């Protein structure tokens, strides 16, 4: 049943996703164009998805760059340094974190982060505050608990006698962490980051609220950009005909990105079980 449902769903998205090319006859290469001009009322339409694909990857990448050191550091602290009582507080706190609805993150971004960027960093080009950076920072916060809790599990899974073995050789605790715990847990941490990215790729609402939604190729952290998900939610109600088909194609691209991440997770997991 479940498999049938998944296959049907996937099949449906693929079927709708290729209509743009099959039914409307838009050349496949056109989706790599940087121009997004879907409005049938204006003169000539171009369904370039490059700004959205590039925007999605760019926003995710910066979110991961910001979030990874923080969350891996936090996980390491919880697993290796924090006393038991701190661990007892931190773990449920992480779970609460995961459970916060994304509109809350978006709202925080919209009411605090965006004005903050505008007021204090306007001189750096944040004229409105709505920007690639704002989207990435909100996402970084949202994926922080995901990366933290999965890497925490990876650190805790490193056998205690590995640490003792290192300490018994006269290494410091930090050396044991740096040279034994981290390398041993590396595959698990990588999996955690990819899980975080997968969540980031699929997030629409919070990002849409702070990113500015300009279909341009991202070149500056200070300027508004957009992502596949935010554009889909934004255009849903207006799009008809070929425009609507283009949104389905965007959904298909998103699906392929997620699929790539799932495969990456599987591949990383395989490496871990071999070690």
């Amino acid at each position, binding site marked *: 049943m479940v498999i049938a449902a998944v296959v049907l769903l996937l099949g449906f998205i693929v079927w709708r996703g290729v209509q743009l090319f099959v039914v409307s006859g838009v050349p496949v290469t056109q989706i790599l164009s940087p121009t997004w001009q879907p409005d049938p009322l204006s003169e000539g339409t171009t369904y370039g998805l490059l700004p959205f694909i590039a925007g999605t990857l760019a926003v995710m990448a910066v979110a991961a760059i910001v979030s990874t050191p923080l969350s891996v550091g936090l996980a390491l602290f919880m697993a290796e340094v924090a006393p038991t009582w701190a661990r007892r507080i931190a773990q449920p706190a992480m779970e609460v974190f995961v459970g916060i609805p994304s509109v809350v993150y978006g709202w925080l971004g919209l009411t605090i982060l965006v004005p903050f960027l505008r007021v204090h960093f306007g001189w750096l080009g944040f004229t409105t505050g709505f920007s690639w950076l704002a989207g990435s920072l909100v996402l970084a916060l949202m994926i922080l608990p995901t990366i933290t809790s999965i890497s925490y599990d990876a650190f805790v899974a490193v056998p205690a006698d590995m640490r*003792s*073995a*290192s300490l*018994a*050789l*006269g*290494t410091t605790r930090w*050396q044991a962490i740096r040279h034994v715990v981290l390398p*041993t847990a590396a595959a698990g941490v990588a999996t955690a980051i990819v899980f975080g990215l997968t969540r980031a790729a699929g997030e629409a609402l919070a990002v849409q609220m702070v990113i500015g939604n300009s279909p341009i190729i991202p070149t500056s952290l200070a300027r508004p950009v957009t992502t596949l998900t935010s554009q889909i939610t934004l255009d849903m109600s207006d799009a008809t005909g070929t425009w609507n088909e283009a949104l389905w194609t965007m959904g298909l691209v998103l699906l392929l990105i997620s699929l790539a991440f799932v495969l990456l997770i599987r591949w990383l997991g395989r490496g871990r079980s071999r*070690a």
Partner: protein
Amino acid sequence: MNTPQGASPVTATRPTPTPLAIASLQPELTGLNPDAPVKLRAQDVSVRYGDRMAVRDVTLDVREHSVMAFIGPSGCGKSTVLRCFDRMNDLIPGAAVEGRIELDGEDVYAPSVLPVEVRRKVGLVFQRPNPFPMSIYENVAFGPRRHGEQDKARLDDVVERALRQAALWDEVKDDLRKKSGLSLSGGQQQRLCIARTLATDPEVILMDEPCSALDPIATLKIEELIAQLKADYTIVIVTHNMQQAARVSDRTAFFTLGEDRAGYLVELDETLRIFTNPANQLTEDYVSGRFG
């Protein structure tokens, strides 16, 4: 050669004399030299885990280049005392050591002494082989690297020497960097762990039931290794296997559990005497298998 029926296990019917037989003949060639300096000393040592007294009032000396065995029933504090010598007890939350532990006459627990320094001089081989999930080479080079050795040629040297000393070189030399330490057999892993310890150039090697997870042939190899290492190192071995204690050690300390469930040292003497003519009835009962 036929062994006569009912022969005692220690009679010299084997072609090579046992360490026990050697010990009785040439004390100066063994670890029984009375002039050898004291390497390790425990003076009135008691260890608590939280409220529970684990072992109390242990006083003993270990002479340089000798092998001392700790024997006794489970939970009698043998491993606890062992881990005082390299301050590994520090890692157990709630563990408190009273009394004095000396290495070369210096107080190991003095406030000015760093545990890290103690552990470089006093290596520990664990009960279960615990190589790192890295190549054989990286396992052995781990200690020297962490202690600042960068030079590749010198590291190669240290790794080869340690693996030779641990009688593992011939078995692994062809895939030092290719094979993970975890891909070796249990006995090889334990010898790898010994090599890893030797590579940090310790003076003392503590072994906490190093053969309890190994088969008899792997055990024999470790025991032969101990006999060779004695020339350069001082060794303390905790073992549940009394034959092993008899085979490898010069002196044996027998611990047991007191009325209060805390362990204590019953008797410490030359191994031969402990196993043939102990002074204490409890020791006699334990080594003859009537107890424990």
